[in-house]
């Protein structure tokens, strides 16, 4: 046995350390399809209870939509369960290529390549196209999967302060000697819910001969007038060199992601991106259901419009109730509590009130910036949101935080 007791004890000590820091993550078992109302077993072994779900990425409420489920069923019957192959050996079906073409059209790019996840897309794309003569300049709050992708790439990397265009410009000036300058940003930042100033980023990219990379995972399907993403919102649709996004959030929420962009970049990914070369094709039912999702979203903006209305209602309602939120223009509404223990306590008490939310704190967000991230869905209706609001008010009143600003909360609970 190579699993020596000393090693086992070292792992146990690591786990104990995670628990002591209060950052041990526990799963809660859901006994129903993903939706705005779900049946949750928590703690383990407790009877299930119905709660309003305010922490899913199910922005458009398509995760369990009957048409999407039916499309997946059909593909299961007609194209099978799995491919048992990577794409370039014998893992590409007609549905995979159709989905790539539809995503290209939807995102306003030249071509698209599917990955098993957007994490894989982000892990593979930089290494596939950049080398030691190039530089990647990323916003400091980009998603962890982009950080991983950057770390795997041999190009130089640098960062700019979150959404700070003067700092980005300074970095672009500093790196004029590089062959390629690639500006890297999320479209909607997942913890803050704010949008990258993409019009300004594109203008700087033109001025300083840089390319633009956009991870639009928290935007595709609902940001912008027709839900195409942050590039549509800022009037720069068609001007982004590389977009990565996910099928695992608004677009049905199963799994899968893509790199969409300049034809040559996509072609290089097909030749070199390691997660594409060494990981299985997206399962046929997911590819087919994603095609159905794009069909629904191309036919009507009804769902993104409802989501926008829900998000507008919720932002105003929680501020009127006396909570501090992060400003933004997305269905991610962070309710700021600043103190890590307070965020966890409030989340726990809200669950007892029938509202499912999660507290986030350092190192997931900056120190002293603990929060409860609420996420709206087109599946929420007014009675659900009203009920959730009343619970927030009740719990907020218990802790005496309603009407307190950042300074007031920190004075009371510490940062």
């Amino acid at each position: 046995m190579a699993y020596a007791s000393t090693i086992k004890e070292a792992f146990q000590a690591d786990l104990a350390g995670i628990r002591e820091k209060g950052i041990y993550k526990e799963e809660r078992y859901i006994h129903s399809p993903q939706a705005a109302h779900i049946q949750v077993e928590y703690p383990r072994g407790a009877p299930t209870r119905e709660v309003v779900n305010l922490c899913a990425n199910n922005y458009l409420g398509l995760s369990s939509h009957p048409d999407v489920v039916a499309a997946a069923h059909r593909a299961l019957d007609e194209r099978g369960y799995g491919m048992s192959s990577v794409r370039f050996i014998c893992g590409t079906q007609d549905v995979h290529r159709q989905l790539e073409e539809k995503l290209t059209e939807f995102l306003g790019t030249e071509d698209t390549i599917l990955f098993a996840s957007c994490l894989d897309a982000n892990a593979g794309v930089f290494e596939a196209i950049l080398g030691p003569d190039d530089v990647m300049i990323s916003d400091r709050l980009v998603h962890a999967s982009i950080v991983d992708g950057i770390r795997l790439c041999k190009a130089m990397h640098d960062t700019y302060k979150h959404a700070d265009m003067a700092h980005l410009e300074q970095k672009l000036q500093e790196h004029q000697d590089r062959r390629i300058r690639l500006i890297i940003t999320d479209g909607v930042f997942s913890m803050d819910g704010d949008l990258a100033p993409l019009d300004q980023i594109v203008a700087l990219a033109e001025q300083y001969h840089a390319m633009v990379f956009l991870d639009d995972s928290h935007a595709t399907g609902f940001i912008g007038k027709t839900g195409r993403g942050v590039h549509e919102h800022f009037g720069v649709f068609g001007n982004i060199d590389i977009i990565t996004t996910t099928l695992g959030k608004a677009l049905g929420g199963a799994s899968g992601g893509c790199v969409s962009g300049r034809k040559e970049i996509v072609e290089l990914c097909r030749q070199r991106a390691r997660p594409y070369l060494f990981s299985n094709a997206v399962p046929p039912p997911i590819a087919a259901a994603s095609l159905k999702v794009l069909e629904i979203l191309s036919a009507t903006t009804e769902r993104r419009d409802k989501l926008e209305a829900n998000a507008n209602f919720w932002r105003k309602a929680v501020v009127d109730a006396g909570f501090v939120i992060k400003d933004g223009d997305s269905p991610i509404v962070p309710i700021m509590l600043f103190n890590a223990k307070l965020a966890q306590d409030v989340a726990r008490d809200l669950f007892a009130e029938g509202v499912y939310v999660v507290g986030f704190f350092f190192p997931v967000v900056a120190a002293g910036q603990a929060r409860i991230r609420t996420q709206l869905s087109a599946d929420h209706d007014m009675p659900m949101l009203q009920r959730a609001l009343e619970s927030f008010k009740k719990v907020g009143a218990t802790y005496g935080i309603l009407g307190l600003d950042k300074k007031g909360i920190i004075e009371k609970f510490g940062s």
Partner: protein
Amino acid sequence: MKELILEYIRHEYLDEDEAADMVLDDRTPLISSGIVDSFSMVSLKRFLEKKNGINIPDEEATPQAFDTVASIMVLVNKHLAKKGA
């Protein structure tokens, strides 16, 4: 040198309102406190190398070595001494 590094950190890593509120000295934890994330400290490393004409190997540019300006000074001085030798 110490002042130069502190000034660089203020400009490179803090927002204006944060810089005004914060007392930053050579003992202030940078990485472990979250002022500088380990991923973004690469620009600080390049700044130190350029200003001092030294090369800090990646394996020495650890979050621990970069956690305070005092520990950064130890690392920089070591490489300056090597350069001078």
